[in-house]
């Protein structure tokens, strides 16, 4: 009889330890996703700042194009992934408009300020892309924990749900293919 109690106790201790470890793993993975998400915020904010500077530069050269950039969505704290994506796309549109405009204003294109901003934006986009990829890699690890047994049981009990991925530009996604 005592052996039965001892056996049940050992099993209970194992279950208890497993719950703690699984819950910790889920929390750490979730934290990593949050960190990566804030990385995206930082990159988006920097991109937005650069875009604002770029618009100011463009306006000083092309005074009749002021209304062209009125649709850019401002970056704010606590945006969802969908909202961030939308804001980023609006910035993409603004940048492409600037590029088209610059073609018609050679003085703008040749200005040192414009060149420096372009370089900063290129670097900022690399950071943004890196942040998105890191976010997706962390979401992938987290989602794997959420859906795979036995951690899925703990995930269900502790309200850990699958998280959405951040959309990566299709041309960048294609680049991931490794061909040796």
């Amino acid at each position, binding site marked *: 009889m005592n052996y039965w109690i001892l056996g049940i106790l050992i099993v209970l201790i194992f279950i208890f330890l497993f719950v703690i470890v699984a819950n910790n793993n889920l929390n750490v993975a979730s934290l*990593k996703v949050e*960190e*990566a998400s804030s*990385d995206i915020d930082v990159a988006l904010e920097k991109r937005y700042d650069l875009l604002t500077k770029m618009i100011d530069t463009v306006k000083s050269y092309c005074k009749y194009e002021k209304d062209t950039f009125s649709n850019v969505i401002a970056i704010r704290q606590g945006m969802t992934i969908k909202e961030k994506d939308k804001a980023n796309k609006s910035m993409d549109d603004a940048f492409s408009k600037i590029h088209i405009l610059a073609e018609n204003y050679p003085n703008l294109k040749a200005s040192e300020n414009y*060149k*420096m*901003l*372009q*370089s*900063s*934006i*290129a*670097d*900022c986009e*690399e*950071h943004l*892309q*890196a*942040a998105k*990829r*890191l976010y*997706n*890699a*962390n979401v*992938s*690890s987290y989602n794997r924990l959420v859906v795979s047994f036995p951690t899925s049981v703990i995930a269900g009990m502790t309200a850990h749900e699958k998280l959405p991925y951040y959309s990566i530009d299709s041309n*960048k996604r294609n*680049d*991931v*293919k*490794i*061909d*040796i």
Partner: protein
Amino acid sequence: MTKLDTLKKYKNNAQSLHLFGIIFMILGFGLFAYFMLAQISSSYYTYVINYKVILMAFTPVVIGFILLLLYARQYKKYRFAYKESVVDYALGKVFDDYEYEPHSGFSLSYVKKMGLIGLGDDFKSTDFIHAEYKDVDIVQSNIHITRQETYTNSKGETQTRTVTIYLGKWSIYTFNKNFNEDVICVGCNFSDSRVGGLFTSLNKVKLESDSFNSVFKTYTTDNGHTAFYLLTPQVINELLIIAKAYHYKIMYAFIDNKLHVLVNNGHAYFEPGSIYSKISIEDEVNKIIKETKNNKVLIDRLKLDNQLFKGGY
């Protein structure tokens, strides 16, 4: 006499000295063995045989030893001449502007500071190169590290042997992006790495490329952002192609805005081959040109000359 003629002369001299040295040694030891056997079979002539042994067997051994000593001196001259003529000439064919110091290399303190590889018991660094290609700074040096190991032989005796733990090159290139955190990718066949391990303070990162993760372990000093920033899908692809050529005996370290490429493939770069090899000087030159051009290939593949990301605010 041109530098190449001098080189050929040194090579021929070294060859002759080595060959005759070996012949004399074999002759001496052969005679010694012969007289020892004769002594065993007939103890009557013991005194006479001992006298003959000393005179007939040890004279060729001494001559052979002197010839081999002369060979060692001649080979050193040949090696120096090889570096100063063949290697220098080949480097001139690859780079317009370069600096080559055959007998200098990275300092022990620098390698220690980097903390990427073990230092063993004996550290040598030679063939220092500083060159530029498409405005990308290249610094390279050969590294040879050995360690004394004790082992027990079949008779149960404890003996010491010298084991090479690093033999290869270490190249450094200025990178086309600025970064503050370190990222280190250790190839699966790279031995003597001091990166990672159980008690490392570095974070292990998994990239989205399974091909890359299967042959490289990636470590970073931040949460992984810098690794994803530097290792873009295009860069990953190129790094894999380069690593495959070195059978993954390679380490990439992104430190202080520079890319360090460490190759520990047991190959002594810029060293002359065997004195008996039939390879012509022209082939030797071509071999070095090919090895050195790999620096240019790496810069082109990784587009390290692209300054787009460095010129901003």
